[in-house]
């Protein structure tokens, strides 16, 4: 009796197995439902076999460092003076006579390891050529960074300087929230090698290959003057946010009347309809496949902020500005320098932004009520 059961089962199975194999891909047949009209197969649609892996040419990466004295003061342990040659704690800066710059030699095998780790971890989004157009980046907004442009948005180093290695490594280990850029669990040593490779991608006479560029430091971050007086900071921040016209890119968070009174202009001035929405910044200098991608400025009550998990990070993002995305450097690059907005105000704005995020982000009901009040219409 069990034999009868077994034989019938086997016959049914053979039929099912062959039918299954030949079945047209379980109703996902290619023809009538075109599989996702995902963007046309991009240039890196398939990993080429000949993935250029090993870097053989001996001319290593030349990282030019100009203002060596200032940086020595900031990080005493990093540089120790041994007669004429400054020795960086991690490598060796040598003095170049006629260009009067210090440069750092990065050996070819280190770049090779960096290239291999880059292909393993980063190439799926940043592309095998590092041009920001990887397989997983098709249709992704905001698009992944292209390392051929050597501008970086969130390294906390002011835009007109080149980010130093530690800033880049910290950025990768921090990850950008709300984007596929993960907080990578890759060790610092491997990340340093990947970063050296990324620096070697900048085109000739640009970025790290341009001797005149200066490798900057993290933006100067004074202590929080408002520590303990957060609500005062939020009130001051709200005022400063609207006076300094942050709402020209970001949404405004006060009704029009209050905005006018805060700005001290006559009460009748009107604004366009997009006042309470993040404006689309089309002048960002960042392209994908030759098309300049317009990036909407984030609405703090709605979007996930990429690099501001607390007030200090928010302060640094505002102070250092976002290179290539229309957010200027508001803070000051060094203790003596003069920022376009005093630090205390930037701290207040930072607290105000954190307040907006903490009270409204992800809380649909509270946010709807708040925005309805601001827009004074349904």
């Amino acid at each position, binding site marked *: 009796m069990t034999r009868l059961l077994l034989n019938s089962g086997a016959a049914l199975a053979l039929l099912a197995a062959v039918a299954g*194999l*030949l079945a*047209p*891909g379980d109703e996902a*047949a*290619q*023809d009538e439902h075109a599989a996702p009209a995902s963007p046309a197969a991009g240039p890196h649609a398939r990993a080429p*076999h000949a993935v250029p892996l090993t870097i053989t040419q001996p001319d290593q990466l030349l990282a030019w460092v100009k203002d060596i004295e200032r940086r020595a003061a900031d990080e005493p342990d990093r540089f120790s003076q041994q007669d004429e040659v400054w020795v960086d704690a991690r490598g060796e800066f040598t003095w170049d006579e006629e260009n009067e710059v210090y440069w750092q030699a990065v050996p070819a095998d280190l770049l090779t390891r960096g290239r291999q780790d880059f292909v393993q971890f980063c190439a799926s989004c940043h592309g095998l050529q590092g041009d920001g157009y990887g397989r997983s980046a098709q249709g992704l907004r905001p698009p992944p960074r292209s390392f051929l442009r050597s501008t970086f948005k969130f390294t906390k180093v002011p835009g007109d300087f080149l980010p130093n290695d530690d800033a880049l490594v910290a950025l990768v280990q921090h990850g950008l929230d709300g984007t596929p850029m993960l907080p990578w669990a890759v060790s610092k040593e491997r990340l340093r090698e990947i970063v050296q490779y990324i620096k070697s991608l900048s085109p000739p006479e640009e970025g790290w290959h341009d001797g005149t560029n200066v490798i900057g430091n993290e933006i100067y971050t004074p202590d929080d003057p408002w520590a303990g007086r957060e609500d005062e900071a939020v009130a001051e921040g709200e005022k400063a946010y609207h006076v300094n016209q942050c709402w020209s890119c970001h949404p405004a968070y006060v009704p029009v009347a209050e905005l006018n009174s805060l700005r001290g202009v006559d009460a009748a001035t009107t604004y366009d309809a997009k006042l309470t929405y993040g404006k689309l910044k089309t002048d960002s200098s960042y392209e994908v496949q030759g098309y300049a991608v317009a990036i909407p400025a984030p609405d703090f009550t709605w979007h996930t902020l990429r690099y501001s998990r607390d007030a200090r990070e928010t302060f640094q993002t505002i102070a250092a500005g976002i290179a290539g995305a229309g957010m200027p450097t508001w803070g000051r690059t060094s203790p003596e320098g003069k920022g376009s907005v005093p630090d205390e105000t930037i701290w207040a704005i930072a607290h105000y932004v954190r307040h907006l995020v903490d009270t409204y982000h992800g809380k649909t009901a509270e946010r709807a009520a708040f925005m309805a009040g601001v827009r004074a219409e349904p």
Partner: protein
Amino acid sequence: MSATATCPPAETTRHRVDVAFGMAIFIGAWSMAFLTLFLSFLIIRHRQPQWPPPGVMLPSLGLAAAGTAVLLASSVALHAALRRLRAGARGFSARWAAGLLLALVFAGLQTALWTGTWRAGAYPDSGIYEGLFYMLTWFHGAHVACGLVALLWVAGAAARAGAPRLSTASSVAVFWHFVDALWLVLFVGFFLV
């Protein structure tokens, strides 16, 4: 492994049946492998909206047809040689050499087919049609190469020892007929249909 090492068992009918049995299982296993590849070819082909894909360079049918004929001829020659060996008559080496020669001609035709297609710009990665073409013909080509080595081995044994052991010769001939059958299925499945 020199012959003395395992001093091959006496050529009894029992041993001949053992070798035939082992050969049958070997052919069964290899046909499973080929069946998988051929079934995958059919499934991928079934998935394509249009077959052969528009604008694809078809490999030359003439060369393939010529190859089929030559291959069949070589099998016939080997079969005749075996009949002579079984009957104990002389003509084994000559016919076996003819079969070997025809096999070499087939190998030549295959390489001509490949180089022609390659030079015409159809590489394995230029599309699913070319990929399948190269996959099927290369897999079969590998077996043709092994078959050639086996044929040479038996021819060598025949030259040295007058006549090879019947069990070895018959199993090599069976393998060659198997390779022949593979090519027929492939030729019909890929080129004609």
